[in-house]
């Protein structure tokens, strides 16, 4: 068996970063809109 642990770790790390980046971006955007609506509601 060839040693491919580096590839394995890189693959999982990269995939996780892409997903996490999207979740964070969605969270930031929704928080910004929620704040905006909060200001409007006052």
């Amino acid at each position, binding site marked *: 068996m060839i040693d*491919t642990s580096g590839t394995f770790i890189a693959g999982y790390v990269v995939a996780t970063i892409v997903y996490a980046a999207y979740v964070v971006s969605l969270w930031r955007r*929704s928080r910004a809109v*929620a704040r905006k609506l909060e200001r409007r509601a006052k």
Partner: protein
Amino acid sequence: MTSVSQSAAAASVAPTTRPVFDWVLGLAIAAVAAVYVRAIYFTPAEALQGLAQKIYYVHVAAAIDAYVAVSITALMSLVALWLRDQRADRLAESSAEVGIVFLSVVLTTGPIWGHKIWGTWWAWWEMRLTLTLFLWFVVAAYLVLRGAIEDDAMRARYSAVLAILGALLIPFIHLSVYMFAARLHPMPVVLKPSQPSLPSEMLTTFVLSVCAFTFFCAALIRARYRYGILRDLAASLDAEGNAA
């Protein structure tokens, strides 16, 4: 966040707004984490490729869900153009955005795997990867087009036209890449991440990972859809504020 959305909804006649981040998305993230744990610690390494084969669980699941999400965009674009329904347009937008995230995962994990196993980062004769790249371009164009139009109705029409033409384009790209690959490699017999018969333990992990990522994909689309409602509500309140 919940209370904010509800008070805003009470103040207007817009569709009811619900929280973007709720237990469904949390559960989906937990499911993906559980699959990670199972794939990393409790699934044996494949004999020929070693640990690199485990990328398969992330890569293939992302590919399946990316294609599902992009298909939803194409289908909803047709509905949006036909019925002029804002909800269909919003769902098309949501699944396109989530789709490009999953496509990006496919496009990054694929070369990482290929670099070790094929000895090359990118292989143009690998049909699915090449097709994914062109799909990524079309979805990126779709999202840029949406960002470049201010009028809601016009944005819905234009982006739906692009999505439907994109759906027509896919078979042509598929055929073209196939004919291109056939010229270079008469019958591309290479090591594929998918083995014809996986040992049952790996198969279980694979099925679980597809389920978990599909759930995650659906939860993201749902969250993005809810965010879309909030954003449109804020924009329309802005417009009213300016008019008054």
